[in-house]
């Protein structure tokens, strides 16, 4: 795989493999600082000092030049950023699962706002307009699994608010399985109680004309584990921005993502991992494939290791595999360190073309070209899929990627 950017140097990952660190990629400078060298000369504020508000009117109109919007096709989601949104209830499907309660709760629910507050106008717009939140509450201590299917958002502009709470010591996989048409801005709040283990998977398998903007806020408690997975396959514009705070000592955050952009599709994720407490461990790993004229992906990964987060162990990476001409992948890893006393922190980014030598090797063993391509791409994405830890979804995603490769979606 070749690296496409300016400053690269070899870097050993915690797994012992050789990665390539890329700084100063894309359009925004990387931020690397520590306690002795506050932010250096880089003119960017610390990641958790951005303006926040739940009221859309507190945000200025979006011009498309803002750091958070400059890589997004804002004209295609203008209604979501500043239009009126229908914040009423929508239809969903969820089977009854022991220890898991799924219910609509009012705006006054005391949990709302605990995991985070909007940092951009589309998120604040949804927050201002939603009428009630769909709350998933996980109790008990046994392992539970819930697939929440949402495919009835319709084509009118909508707002939604979703709350996922894992009570202390609970253990669950919650899948938000999103499909159908949508013009939707959503906030998802995730609260992981002390000692709980929660996996949240959000699957964007929308129709071709769907436009979806989501912000996930997560707060992970003491000795708790959150595995957060973003899977984006279908939709015209899909932007999912997870912001995870490792708030309790010993909290663990594994942030995974896999995306496959076809011609004309814009798939974006801005990931923020905040190591707030001591002894926290974070892993961010996103992989994407791009195929077809106008296929576009954006990945911005911010990791902030706060002043109290001693003994932090953190690593983030993004890899993109470019399958055809006419695509564009932006990949911008940023790392801020505010304490000198950490165990380790690193980041890596690589965007490469399909490797013809791999193709030749497989074909020289008799494997036809199309099958060889499938093997390589599936191999590239498979380690993320295998980490999800929920077999029915893993199988479905593997099959979905086969369909993507066969060009079946568009």
């Amino acid at each position, binding site marked *: 795989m070749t690296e496409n950017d300016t400053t690269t140097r070899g870097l050993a990952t915690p797994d012992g493999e050789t990665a390539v660190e890329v700084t100063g990629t894309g359009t925004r400078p990387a931020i690397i600082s520590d306690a002795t060298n506050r932010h250096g000369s880089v003119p960017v504020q610390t990641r958790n000092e951005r303006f926040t508000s739940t009221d859309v009117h507190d945000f200025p109109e979006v011009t498309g030049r803002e750091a958070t919007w400059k890589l997004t096709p804002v004209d295609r989601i203008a209604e979501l950023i500043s239009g009126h949104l229908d914040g009423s209830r929508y239809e969903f499907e969820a089977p009854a699962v022991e220890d898991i309660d799924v219910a609509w709760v009012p705006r006054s629910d005391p949990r709302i706002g605990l995991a985070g507050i909007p940092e951009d106008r589309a998120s604040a717009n949804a927050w201002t307009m939603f009428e009630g939140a769909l709350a998933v509450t996980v109790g008990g201590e046994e392992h539970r699994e819930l697939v929440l299917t949402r495919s009835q958002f319709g084509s009118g502009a909508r707002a939604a608010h979703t709350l996922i709470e894992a009570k202390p010591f609970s253990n669950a996989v919650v899948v938000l399985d999103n499909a159908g048409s949508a013009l939707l801005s959503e906030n998802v709040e995730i609260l992981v109680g002390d000692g709980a283990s929660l996996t949240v998977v959000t699957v964007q398998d929308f129709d071709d004309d769907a436009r979806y903007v989501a912000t996930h806020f997560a707060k992970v408690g003491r000795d708790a584990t959150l595995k957060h997975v973003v899977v984006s396959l279908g939709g015209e514009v899909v932007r999912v921005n997870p912001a995870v705070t490792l708030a309790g000592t010993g909290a663990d955050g594994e942030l995974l993502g896999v995306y496959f952009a076809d011609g004309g599709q814009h798939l974006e994720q801005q990931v923020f991992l905040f190591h707030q407490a001591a002894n926290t461990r974070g892993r961010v790993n996103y992989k994407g494939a791009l195929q077809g004229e106008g296929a576009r992906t954006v990945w911005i990964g911010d990791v902030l290791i706060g002043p109290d987060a001693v003994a932090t162990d953190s690593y983030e990476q993004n890899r993109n595999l470019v399958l055809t001409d006419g695509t564009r992948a932006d990949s911008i890893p940023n790392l801020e360190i505010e304490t000198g006393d950490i165990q380790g922190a690193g980041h890596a980014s690589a965007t490469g073309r399909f490797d013809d030598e791999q193709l030749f*090797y497989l074909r020289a*063993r*008799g494997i036809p*070209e199309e099958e060889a391509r499938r093997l390589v791409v599936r191999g590239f994405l498979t380690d993320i899929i295998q980490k999800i830890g929920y077999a029915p979804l893993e199988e479905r995603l593997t099959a979905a990627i086969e369909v993507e490769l066969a060009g079946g979606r568009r």
Partner: protein
Amino acid sequence: MSTLQISGLEVSVETEQGSKQILRGVDLTVNEGEIHAIMGPNGSGKSTLAYAIAGHPKYSVDGGSITLDGEDVLAMSVDERARAGLFLAMQYPVEIPGVTNSNFLRTAKTAIDGEAPAIRGWVKEVRESMTKLRMDSSFAERNVNEGFSGGEKKRNEILQLELLKPRFAVLDETDSGLDVDALKIVSEGVNRAKEATGLGILLITHYTRILRYIKPDFVHVFVNGRVAEEGGPELAERLEEEGYDRFLPGTVVL
């Protein structure tokens, strides 16, 4: 009897400075069951011959022919050549992240045979071949060549040779970078494959060392894109003593 026939082969390679001719008319006939050693100094075109036979897109054939039992190999795609019975053991085997060796081997076997191998017998065959090549069973579930040492990659090539059972194999500097123990293991594997299927072998090497373990029937010396001298095993012995100096420009040929 199967025959791989190369006649008047001219091959050039694309470089940043443009097209560069490497092979300048190579004639070579390999019958099944024969071992032909191709020797020569660096840059003489040995590896180019290997890649041209396998059909690597970087090399373009400007003249001559390659036929397998009369069939035009040059008209076949890379994978068609493999399915027709040609095998290239690569000097630098490629890593395929996320694809396990066992999945890769089964996929290749299925492609070459035109049907999936019977699971039970196949698993046993893979395990036995791996044991003979002193490959730990964990190599089946590791990704293809990923994190393998140089010697492990070469053993993995020979594992494929044994399992895929080609009619002709080109071994491109399979001996380079191997210590003596690994060289013996790899050579045994090649000899075993020949014993089992009677395949014909083109053994490309820079050194005579491997010829102690794999006995060639014929030796061809490549210089400057052509066969400069041919003979039996005795030619290899002479090269062992004299090196390639007498073939190189500026040297007086006696």
